[in-house]
Each structure stands twice: as structure tokens, then as C-alpha cells.
């Protein structure tokens, strides 16, 4: 049997050698989920016996020599905004209570085609709106490193489930940092691929032009395995990129000789950033420099416009995307309504939480006649400028290194009544979503007993390089092998 913190590569090898079965892996994950659930609240829907049955089928395939892929028989957790046939999907919202999907998300199809076992769905901020997994009908999720602290968000449950050793891999969605920030807070590796690299078919939309599915794992090598399983063109998503998927795992040679790393001066300058965090990030960059990479300073001058532009665009799209939750066809419908107008008003008032309502109202406002040009259109122009910033920076370097978040995991409740301060915690992550480029957060040490994340950003479709650099870093350091003491 393997350790609870065994990564996907290790699990693959254990299954291949026969030192453990898929059923044992899945049983161990279910047991660990049960044992930690009260403390963490990371996984909100467990597939239980259905996951065990899937594991038995994987073992049967293996016994008959028909292994589907490296991930055949490995347990994976979804985020609760990815639909799976016959399973509940709530997006942590009252309005979707009782909903189960008649079809599979593309990522679910691909995981199943690879033989991976879907263990269940992870806690999240309602409709992925939030940075702390506190906006959720399932109750807040807790950080395995300090249960009084947030695991980040919105994919906090996915990050915590890997961090606490429940599973070796989980999926999340990242609209403004919702994979990378919780990965940073929970000390795991979080990858947000290029916009369009992973199909959004079956991902409940928050902000369509920004949403991207990605991975939580213990290492970059594991992320490579998981990404090559779920990535690739899907004709059901018009924004999906029709480019073949490289075998990312095969490109992990540990070599960063000659690589140029850009450090955007604006990211190391932002006041309010925790100096200890910046210190850890600089040390991480220094490790890569020692391995042969070259470090240059670059500039991303429009960074400070990123957060405002992001919240205008994301909320505008959300106000439209969430219009379908109206109580008419599925989900929660208010009772005792007199007419359809009242059905809308009451179902939505009762069904959505405060943060979702706030964003729907903001988004509706910025799209309104008379305000569109001043807000939405202006934000789209900023988006173009941010892309230009990145293009200019990537003409001088191969990857950009930054802190993932200006701080380590904050206390639960600390920011829940201060939305602007909550929004500002996305300051280092939103630009990548606005520009559509890939980013990865890797653990680069602890400060005050809490993990710090080093973010690497790359050019469009340059996930291979990001994974190679992150893997090279992890070959030389052991930050990613340090686990939360309470669960280790």
C-alpha cells in the first residue's frame, strides 16, 4: 500500500507493480475523507460505493491486461461545478440543491476514458465567486495547515483534498486565480492551463471568457499526467483550442539551463504584500538561477488595472451566465408564487447567496445602457493592454515568476465582510486569466508555518515549459514534499 501523500506518478507505479490495487487506493481515499471531513469539509459529495465499483472495474481491467492509461484506477476529486451524469452538482448554491446532471462534463468523460475513478466533488465558493471557500451552502472549508484559516478559493475544497492526502489529484476551475491561490494557501501544485486548453463543456459557467479547468496535485510531474488526460480540443466548446496535446510528462527533463526567467518589478513592489512571502518567492527564483536559469527584470506596467478590469468583466459575464437559474426548469423554485415574475424574484432571492447577488448586480450595472462604454468596454480595452504587456515581457523572457498571492492563508472570517480586500488577494493571478495565458503555483517554503506559492506564468500553450521548469524546481527542492503536520 502507498502513503496517503503518494502522488499520481507514485500511485501509477504502485498499481503497475501490483503493490496496491485501485480498490485499495479508493478505499483509502474514502476512509481518509470520512476521517477528516468534520475538520476540513473539503469533499462535499462522495461517490462512495459507485467509486468503489469503478475501482473494481479498473482492477479487473488491469487483471486482464487492458490498462487504459497511467491514471487507470487512480482516484480524482472534481470541483462541485463540473457535472457528472446522475451525480449532484450544486456549485455550493442553494439554487442548485437537488440538481443532478443528465450528461457528463468533457473532463469527466476524459477521466473515465482514462480509467480514473471520480471519488466525488469538492467544496467551493458559490458559483466559484470568492477567494476563501466561505461562500458555500456546505459550510466553510478549512485549511489543513491551520484549521482556523481559509484554504483559499474558489477551488478551496479541491486544494485541501490534495493537501490533506485524501487524493493525489483534484480538478479545479480558475477564473481569476481560483486554482493557483488555494494551491498556494494549501501547499500544493496548482496549474491553470491556457484558456481553451481544457474544454469547458460541463463546467458550470462563472465568467465564460476567463474560466479554465486545471489541476491540483502534489507535484508538477503529477500535473503533467493529469493535464495530458483532460486537455485537448472539444468541438462542443467553441473556444476550445484545436491543437494537439503534447505528452507533457515526456518533456520533464529537469533542465533549466539557458532558460530566462522574468521578474516583473511591479509584482515585487506592490505595497501591502507580505515581505516574508516575497522573500520565499525570491529564494525560489534563486534556486532556479542556481540550476542554470537566467533572471531578468521585466515590466508589466498595467498590472494595477488588472483587478478592476477583472471584476468588471467577470461580473458582467456572470450576470448573464447566471440568468438561467430562474426556478423554471430545474433547481430550486420558490413556493407559493403568484406568477412567473414572482417565481424569478423569489427563487433567485432565496437561491443565491450574498456574494453571488452582489456580483450579479454589479455585472448587470456595468452592462446597462449608458454605463457599458465606461465600464465593460473600458475593461475590455484594459484586457488588450494587459495582453500587450505580457507579449512585450515574453519577448525578453521564457517564463515570468511572481508570488501567487501577496500573503499566506488568512483567517476564516477575516475578509468575508470586506469584499474589496478579498478581491485584492487576486492581484497576482487575475492578469493571467485576462490574457488567457497559463500559470502554475508551486510550494516554495513556509512562513509562520504556512505555505507560500511561487507562480510561474508562460506564453499561450506553453504549459509544457511551465511544467518542465516547475518539475526542475521540485527535483532540486522538497517544499512540495512537506505536508500539513496535523495530517502528515
Amino acid at each position, binding site marked *: 500500500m502507498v502513503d496517503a501523500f503518494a502522488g499520481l506518478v507514485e500511485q501509477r507505479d504502485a498499481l503497475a507493480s501490483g503493490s496496491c490495487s485501485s480498490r485499495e487506493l479508493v478505499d483509502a481515499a474514502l476512509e481518509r475523507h470520512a476521517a477528516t471531513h468534520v475538520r476540513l469539509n473539503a469533499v462535499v459529495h462522495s461517490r462512495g460505493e459507485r467509486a468503489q465499483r469503478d475501482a473494481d472495474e479498473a482492477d479487473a481491467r488491469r487483471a486482464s491486461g487492458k490498462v487504459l492509461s497511467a491514471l487507470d484506477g487512480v482516484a480524482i476529486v472534481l470541483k462541485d461545478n463540473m457535472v457528472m451524469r446522475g451525480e449532484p452538482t450544486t456549485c455550493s448554491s442553494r439554487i442548485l440543491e437537488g440538481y443532478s*446532471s443528465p450528461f457528463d462534463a468533457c473532463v469527466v468523460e476524459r477521466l473515465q476514458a482514462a480509467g480514473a475513478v471520480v471519488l466525488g466533488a469538492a467544496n467551493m465558493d458559490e458559483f466559484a465567486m470568492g477567494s476563501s471557500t466561505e461562500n458555500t451552502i456546505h459550510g466553510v472549508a478549512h485549511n489543513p495547515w491551520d484549521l482556523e484559516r481559509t484554504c483559499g478559493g474558489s477551488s478551496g475544497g479541491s486544494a485541501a483534498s490534495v493537501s490533506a492526502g485524501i487524493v493525489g489529484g483534484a480538478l479545479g476551475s480558475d477564473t481569476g486565480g481560483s486554482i493557483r491561490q488555494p494551491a498556494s494557501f494549501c501547499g500544493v501544485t496548482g496549474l491553470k492551463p491556457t484558456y481553451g486548453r481544457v474544454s469547458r463543456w460541463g463546467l458550470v459557467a462563472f465568467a465564460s471568457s476567463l474560466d479554465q479547468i486545471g489541476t491540483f496535485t502534489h507535484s508538477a510531474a503529477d500535473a503533467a499526467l493529469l493535464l495530458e488526460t483532460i486537455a485537448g480540443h472539444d468541438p462542443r466548446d467553441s473556444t476550445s483550442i484545436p491543437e494537439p496535446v503534447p505528452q507533457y510528462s515526456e518533456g520533464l527533463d529537469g533542465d533549466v539551463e539557458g532558460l530566462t526567467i522574468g521578474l516583473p518589478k511591479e509584482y515585487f513592489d506592490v505595497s501591502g504584500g507580505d515581505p516574508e512571502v516575497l522573500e520565499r518567492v525570491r529564494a525560489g527564483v534563486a534556486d532556479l538561477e542556481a540550476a542554470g536559469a537566467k533572471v531578468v527584470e521585466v515590466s508589466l506596467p498595467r498590472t494595477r488595472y488588472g483587478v478592476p478590469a477583472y471584476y468588471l468583466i467577470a461580473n458582467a459575464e456572470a450576470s448573464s451566465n447566471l440568468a438561467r437559474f430562474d426556478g423554471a426548469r430545474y433547481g430550486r423554485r420558490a413556493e407559493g408564487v403568484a406568477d412567473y415574475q414572482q417565481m424569478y424574484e423569489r427563487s433567485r432571492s432565496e437561491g443565491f447567496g450574498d456574494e453571488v447577488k452582489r456580483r450579479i448586480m454589479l455585472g448587470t450595472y456595468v*452592462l446597462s445602457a449608458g454605463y457599458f462604454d465606461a465600464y465593460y468596454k473600458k475593461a475590455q480595452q484594459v484586457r488588450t493592454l494587459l495582453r500587450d504587456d505580457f507579449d512585450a515581457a515574453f519577448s525578453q523572457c521564457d517564463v515570468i515568476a511572481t508570488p501567487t498571492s501577496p500573503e499566506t492563508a488568512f483567517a476564516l472570517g477575516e475578509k468575508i465582510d470586506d469584499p474589496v480586500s478579498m478581491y485584492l488577494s487576486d492581484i497576482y493571478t487575475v492578469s493571467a486569466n485576462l490574457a488567457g495565458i497559463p500559470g502554475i503555483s508551486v510550494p516554495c517554503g513556509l512562513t509562520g508555518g504556512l505555505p507560500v506559492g511561487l507562480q510561474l506564468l508562460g506564453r499561450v500553450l506553453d504549459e509544457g515549459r511551465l511544467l518542465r521548469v516547475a518539475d526542475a524546481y521540485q527535483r532540486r527542492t522538497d517544499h512540495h514534499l512537506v505536508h500539513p503536520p496535523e495530517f502528515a
Partner: protein
Amino acid sequence: MSEAREDQLYMGYEVVIGLEVHTHLRTQSKLFSPAPVAYGDEPNHNTHPVDLALPGVLPVLNRSVIELAIRLGLATHSTINERSVFSRKNYFYPDLPKGYQISQFEEPTVSDGWLEIEVASGKGKKKGKKKGGGAEVVQKRIGITRAHLEEDAGKSIHDATHATTDTLVDLNRAGVPLLEIVSEPDLRSAAEASAYLKKLRAILRYIGVSDADMEKGQFRCDANVSLRRPGAELGTRTEIKNLNSFAFVEAAINAEVERQAEVLDDGDEVVQATMAFDPATGHTSVMRLKENADDYRYFDDPDLVPLMISEADIEAVQAQLPELPDDKRDRFVAEYALSESDATTLTQSRALAQFFEDATVIHAQPKSVANWILRDVLQSLGEGDRSIEDLALTPESFAALVALVDSGRLTAKSGREIYGVLAESGGDPEAIMAERGLESVQDTGLIEGVAREVIASNPDSVDKYREGDGKVLNFLMGQVMKATQGKANPADVKQILERELAAQ
């Protein structure tokens, strides 16, 4: 814009009309989902998770609509834009599952085109085009502002038969592809509006873009109407929604013109509003004032990418485009020496024009083939939506019939009797003629004999004829026709009678 025409003024006002036509595209599946497009099925059967707006679905453009939009663009002399963009039009309604309609807003696929309609010239007697060689008819060009692709909504049925106030929703129509074709405010009367709609529908059917069946809701019209004093700025307009027959379009526009004229004559102002037309009362009434209109919060749909159309795409469609009604009309005038008015009528429908040409190949007398179609065939088709294909008539049997009449073997009257049979149940005109003994009497000796008998037994009439009363000849002809059971050719009878009368 041209000067206001005296004869088109209503109580001294110039009528200004622009039309928005929604036409269903002829596709197998919906605009953004694989669900089938079909009419008359059980409610909510032709739906896919995309049409139901289930969580996690995404739209994918049905590529077959691109060709249809290009065809319409070419047929209306429009610009087919290299880039067009799908936007979201946001509003809440039970038959709109997503809470937004995907449409085109700032960048439509087709823009800046025109089509021509025939209008009375307004000079001389107001006889219209029916009379003579079409001298009183002129072509008027109507601008087409744009034609954009969008999805239809479902149907909400606010069920009065239910004891409750439930609203029932049928989503079979949700997502059916539409082209919305918006005209410039170039129309000056209800009659012009009707002519425009008929022309547009003929074009849509010709080029296979839409079946445009009004009864199935495949061709719907909103009319924007305003009045102004000749030469003045455009007046405030109102929009009459959901007109689904030609008769309603004309009646609704006339009713709205009358209403606005009264408002203006009273010294009041027309208020911008959406109107409904009630065919039962013949009146328009305010549905919604502009100030209460929805703010649709249009923005580009981030789930879709811009639609790009290349020159090569357009050329490929152009190569396949059938001859258009106007071109066919001009060719019929040149090739078959038909009048413009007859050629226009024959080319209203592609099937009818084809029937004419097929029959003319067999019986090379275009004028008489055309006359028979314009008189008898059109009467069979009636005012309804019947098509030539609905008749049992074939070009072969029809051409044979016209040939029999032209050769004198059938009188026009007998020909019409046989035509009725062919139209209803088909058959061979020659055989029917023989069976019914309708072949005309061609034996001049026989007619001469009868004529002499008629002259001998009607001396009074003969006297009157000699005194110069020409009308008596008709009576005598009638007697001869009667004696020959109507099978003699009237022209022959007349000629023989005159000769015999002169000989005596």
C-alpha cells in the same frame, strides 16, 4: 430619399414604414444545438440540454446557416461581412431558458442591400398593373439595412383553459435558426409593405433559405410606422409586433396610420411604443411604452468566436445560386416576348416559372402557354398557399392541352373543361377529349349545312342583319353552335355564316 407622392399621402401625411422580418432558416438542426428542427411535434420533444440551458452547456454554431445567410446576402445585393459577431440579448421570460437570446447586434453577417418591388407609378389613372403591358408599373428599390442570425425563443402558453394561472412552455422552437431582415424606412404605404414582404418571401423560397410558411410561424413581421408632413423630418415611430399574415400586415399598418393621423390632427404627439394589432377589432393598441422597454444589456457572447466568412466562401455559394426572380422576369420578357407584368406573375414562384418553361419546351407557343397559366392555373392555385406542385397537372399534359386548343381541335371552352380534369386528377388530354367527345367539328361542309338551315329558319333575323344590325350575327352564331353541340370553332362558324349570308 425620394419626394413624397401626392397620391400616397394620407390626410396630408406621408406614411413611412420599415419592416423587420423574422424568417426561419431551412436547416435540419437548431442554430446552436443538435436538436432537430421540426414542426407540429409533441411539446418539448425537440430539445437538447443546450436548448434547456442546463448547467454546463455551451452553444456551437450550426455551420449550415452560414451558406444560407450568404445566399440571402447575394440575392439582396448586400454586403456579406467578413467578420460578424454573436451577442447576448439579456431578458427574463419563461420561454427563454438561458435568460438571454443569442443574436447579432453591432456586427451582423449581412448588411447594406436592397430589393426591388413593383409599385403603381402614380401617373394617370390608378388602374394598377393589371391592365395592359405594365406601363403604369415602376420598380422601386427598398433598402435592406441588415440581416442578422439569431435563435428563436420557445413558446409560452398562458393557459386560460387551466383552472390555475399556470404558464406552459414548449421549447421545441427554442433555438431554431432565424434571419432577421431589417428594411430601411423606404416603404410609403401598406400596399408597398405587402409587396415588399411578398417579394422577400419569393426570394427566400427561390434560394432555398426558408420555407417562409406564415401559418407555421416561419415568416413573421414587425412593422415600424411613422407619419410626417412631406419634406419634414421623420416622425416618432411605433412598432407593431408579430404580424403573421399579409392581410394583417396591411390592415395593421392602415389602422396604425389612421390612429397616428388622428393623434397628430388633434395636435398631440405620437408616443414611441410597441403596438399590438387585434384582427378582430381591426385596431392597434399600446403593448408597452418605450420608457418601459427592457434594457437588453447586449454584449458579445464569450462562449462563441466571431464568424469569419471569406471571399472564397462567398464565391462558392454564388456559383450554386439559382436564378433570382428579377433576373428570371427579365429573361422571360426577352426570351419569350412576354409582357413585364405577365413575366412578373409567372416568376413569383420558382416552381411556377419552371412549369411554364417545361411546358413551353413541349409546346413552343410561350404566349398561349403563359395565358393559360395566368388565367386558369392561377385560378386553381387560388389566393392560398397552394403551389403548382399540389396540382395533378404535369407540364406534359398541360402543354398537350394548350396545343390541342391552338390547333383548333379543341375549343377554348372544351379546353377549359379538360383542364379542370387535368388539374384535379391528371390524365391525357387527347384521351379525355375522345372519351368525352369534345373534339371540335372541323368539317366545314357540315357547318355550312347547319348555317344554311339556321339562315332559312330565321328570316326575321336575316332581315335585321341585312339592315345593318350586327348584333344579330351573335344570335345566329349561337344557333349554329347549339346545333353543333358547341364543338364547332366559333371563328369558323362566324366566317362561314358571314359568307353564307353574303351569298344569299
